């Protein structure tokens, strides 16, 4: 009779847990990393390794010092370091990704109490900190496939300065043959990773699609010389929009829980990104838009709470 096990609900179990999902996201980001290294050379790999190592070490040190359970292999610190590296230009001084990762883990995550408690996406916190501290390094990009430090502006920065973009086609943008951050340039590789996440149902369409659509529609209306003449396809392909929309805005901790809330979150991100790109001081607004909507996520959750069955 030992085969009968008396147990309380829930009875259905899934093998998924936080660390499996984290490692799956890491896996889905690998194509973009390989593409970044191919496009920008070994400097990009150096940045990725430094950022990931610093993130892991600072996670262990802080968890040890605060006497918490050391959870090095849950993948979250690895993912933070990886995402931060993908948001850095390939030829930065060696200490920049290290400081960024330490800041992202310490101030972005552990100060709030560790994984699941942070208000803002830690990798974005790290990136914005570096951007505000050392803008000189954060905005000098290298040319693709040249493997030396010939600096060039990103397509968005050129657009901001009023230059005409003739030598960059949409196809170049799609493959990643442009100046930019390590992980954001190759849209093809990013879409591959995103498809994997969709297939495993780790992310839903609500945030990424509304985010990208809102950016596209808004830039189509306002980014051109006259209304309804913006190059919306260029705006979707350039900058960190694809990386941000699929891999960073969908972070479970810092995005709303309900589908309705996620749609609002995505629309807000898209709107803010487009506003910053068109009228703001910076050429790129993805990270600031997401941080602002991260801050709004709790209140979105409050107003889009699902009705509990049996209540009014």
């Amino acid at each position, binding site marked *: 009779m030992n085969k009968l096990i008396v147990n309380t609900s829930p009875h259905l179990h899934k093998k998924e847990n936080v660390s499996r999902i984290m490692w799956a996201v890491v896996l889905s980001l690998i194509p973009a990393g390989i593409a970044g290294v191919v496009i920008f050379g070994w400097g990009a790999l150096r940045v990725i390794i430094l950022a990931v190592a610093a993130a892991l070490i600072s996670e262990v040190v802080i968890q040890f010092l605060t006497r918490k359970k050391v959870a090095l292999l849950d993948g979250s610190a690895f993912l933070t370091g990886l995402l931060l590296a993908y948001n850095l230009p390939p030829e930065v001084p060696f200490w920049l990704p290290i*400081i960024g990762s330490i800041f992202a883990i310490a*101030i972005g995550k552990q100060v709030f109490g560790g994984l699941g408690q942070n208000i803002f996406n830690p990798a974005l916190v790290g990136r914005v*900190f570096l951007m*505000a*501290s*050392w*803008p000189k390094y954060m905005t000098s990009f290298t040319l693709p496939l040249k493997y030396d430090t010939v600096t060039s502006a990103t397509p968005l920065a050129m657009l901001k300065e009023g230059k005409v973009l003739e030598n960059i086609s949409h196809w170049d943008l799609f493959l990643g043959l442009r100046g930019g951050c390590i992980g954001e340039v190759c849209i093809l590789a990013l879409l591959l990773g995103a498809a994997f996440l969709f297939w495993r149902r780790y992310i839903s369409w609500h945030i990424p699609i509304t985010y990208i659509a809102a950016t596209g529609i808004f830039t189509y209306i306002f980014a051109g010389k006259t209304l309804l003449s913006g190059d919306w396809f260029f705006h979707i392909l350039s900058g960190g929009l694809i990386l941000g929309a699929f891999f960073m805005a969908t972070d479970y901790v810092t995005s709303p829980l309900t589908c309705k809330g996620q749609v609002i979150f995505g629309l807000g991100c898209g709107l803010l990104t487009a506003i910053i790109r068109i009228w703001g001081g910076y050429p790129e607004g993805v990270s600031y838009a997401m941080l602002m909507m991260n801050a709004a996520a709790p209140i979105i959750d409050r107003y889009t709470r699902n009705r509990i069955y049996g209540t009014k």
Partner: protein
Amino acid sequence: MKRFVQEFTKGIIKENPTFVLVLGLCPTLAVSVSVINGIGMGIAASFVLLGSNIIIALIKNFIPERIRIPCYIVVIATFVTITELMMKAYSPALDRALGIYVPLIVVNCIVLGRAEAYASKHSVRYSLSDALGMGVGFTLALILISAIREFLGSGKLLGQVIFKGFEPASVFAMPSGALLVIGLLLGFFNLIKMRKK
């Protein structure tokens, strides 16, 4: 005499206006970009605090209960005006650096807070001691915050370059850096307090 010393020392650590009472954060955030500004602000606020605490302790029995806050403000504003004109006359550079934050000492919550919470209830002697202690505590806190911010934000201390080749993080010279430094220091001091218990 013992109590006089006690009232003085409590303002420095046990009831530090910035880190324990968390008062007067507006000027703290705004002027702590460099140590010189921090010291200037600390001294100016200390002077106003000293003057207002003494006067209010002297006249506390004549102030009608219901309009006491306006009365305090009038006294405080007098001393702020003195400070501002003195600063304009004798150190115009500091006056320019501190800008609007000197007249804003009028609404500095440390000054009003001590008037309301202390000077209106205690004798002149202890009010003077309290004002001195609070002033010193505020100045020390400003020096600490501004030293961290000046060093990290511009690589200098008191205007002198410390390390060659050190690349300052300009975020610490911005308001966000001020909030960051104050938040971390507050957390740090709370941690020490918790460990002591």
